[in-house]
């Protein structure tokens, strides 16, 4: 009886699992194998790929465009991560202190996060355009305008401002959840010992919010390597290739320059870089947190 039941469970389990595995073999395994093959060969969508060993990777690392994109990515992180981290931390702390209208505040920041990539790119390219509302406001009050998307130095900063707008609510609420997980008794004990707010933040809040902080940082790093819609819609990678991202380059290399094999090796390197970056963040930031 028991063994019969066991057998039935086995059939059931493997029946469903095989649906999953077959689907995955087609839409994940097959592309996976192709990714590896393509990154070591030369191909232009026609005929069969010709193996060339590490040639693609050698070419990649000697390609100035690759290094331009690499610098752009680092540059983006230097703008984006401190900006989004500070603002979402402030948002979380403020939300923690204020006890009324919480839902209103949370939703008005979070609603930015559900803006569609295409629509908000259009929105911000209009807001920040030469004669747009931001610039006309600046001109009326201070007598100057800012070439947000046309200046090589500024374009990437403008994109990081947009992305920050989109993600402050989301990251802020992750941090807020982290704040809520800290026992209130710790603050009370610290107050009895006469700790200032500043000390409470750095000695209690900051160390104990570490898990949430790590999550946010990992999200932010992953996001950085996946950016495509904003530069595609607004700057097209320019001016002077300063907003070219890995995803943009993979897209144009594969589907406009018809060089899928080179794009595949680029994708492999991008994946490795983002993975390495996440590991680095975890190594640098993540700390064991225990309340004893």
């Amino acid at each position, binding site marked *: 009886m028991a063994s019969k039941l066991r057998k039935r469970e086995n059939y059931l*389990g493997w029946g469903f699992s095989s649906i999953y595995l077959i689907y995955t073999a087609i839409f994940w395994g097959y592309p996976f194998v192709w990714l590896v093959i393509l990154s070591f060969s030369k191909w232009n969508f026609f005929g069969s790929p010709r193996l060339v060993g590490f040639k693609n990777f050698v070419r990649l690392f000697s390609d100035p465009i690759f290094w331009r994109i690499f610098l752009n990515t680092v540059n983006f992180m230097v703008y984006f991560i401190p900006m989004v981290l500070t603002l979402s931390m402030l948002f979380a702390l403020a939300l923690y202190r204020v006890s009324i209208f919480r839902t209103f505040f949370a939703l008005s920041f979070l609603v930015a996060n559900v803006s569609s990539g295409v629509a908000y790119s259009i929105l911000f390219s209009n807001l920040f355009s030469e004669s747009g509302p931001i610039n006309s406001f600046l001109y009326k009050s201070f007598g100057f305008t800012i070439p947000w998307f046309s200046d090589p130095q500024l374009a990437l900063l403008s994109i990081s401002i947009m992305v920050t707008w989109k993600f402050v609510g989301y990251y802020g609420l992750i941090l807020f959840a982290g704040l809520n997980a800290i026992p209130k008794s710790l603050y009370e004990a610290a107050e009895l010992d006469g700790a200032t707010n500043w000390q409470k933040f750095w000695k209690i809040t900051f160390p104990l919010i570490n898990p949430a902080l790590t999550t946010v940082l990992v999200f932010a790093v992953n996001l950085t390597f996946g950016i495509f819609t904003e530069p595609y819609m607004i700057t097209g990678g320019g001016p002077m290739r300063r907003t070219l991202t890995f995803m943009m380059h993979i897209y144009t290399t594969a589907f406009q320059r018809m060089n899928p094999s080179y794009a595949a090796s680029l994708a492999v390197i991008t994946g490795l870089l983002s993975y390495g970056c996440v590991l680095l963040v975890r190594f640098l930031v993540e700390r064991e947190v225990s309340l004893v």
Partner: protein
Amino acid sequence: MTRAKRKRFPYITFTLLFIGSIIWIYPYFWLLFSSFKPTSEIYTRFWPTKFTIEHYKFIFLMSDKLQRPFLRALLNSIFISVSITFSVIVSSAFFGYILSKVRFKGRKSVFNFILFQMLFPGFMFIVPLFVLIKTLGLLNTYSAIILPSIISAWGSFMFAQTFKSIPDDYIEAAKIDGANTFWIVTRVMFPLARSTASIVGLFTFIGAWDNFMWPLIVMKDYNKMPLSVLLASFNHEYSSYVGPILAGSVIQTIPMVLIFLIFRKYFLQGISVSLK
């Protein structure tokens, strides 16, 4: 002393937070108002002299003549996103059940494989996935957009985690009443995991609606394009029609915002926040 200090209402924080939230929703209101403004006032006035729906009329009636069928694209987007969301929720519920409640040899390996899969960012597969879709002859079909996303490792994982916390007694009781697996999953387990279903559904829908790069690659047929791609191409080629473009952006944004506002509770749960 400390008690009195804590009780005091944080006026400054409140004001700053209020100003912040106004700044944060300002772009949305600017977009919404601008789509109803006469073209000459889009950049010049926040509050227009009169509201007009000419841009919406243009987008729904005239754009067909420019071979940019917006209404069709809106319906395409709805069709694509709803099919993906529906099949992800259903398949994930079943796989989640199998992975958490059915004892079979190798379950652990299948589960670990799903975790392993989630390590790889989707963008790595864009080029080879295109090769696959091309080989299958699916370019420029709805299947090209829908098929690669109908089963989700993340969704199955989410359901498995939720089902794990549901006691086996429910299943035993249902089995004694003669329920089969289909019945157990749809009538017993699924109702107990409603919030997980909402979270999975919400994030899947938003992901599908907002997906841009993949449909841009596989769909060149204007009649089958989702709204995101059609709007992008309209923006590139008819960039002087600012009003209609903004109206299109409003249409592209509204479903996501509406769904977000309706399911906000689950969205917050998805990032594990409760606002008392």
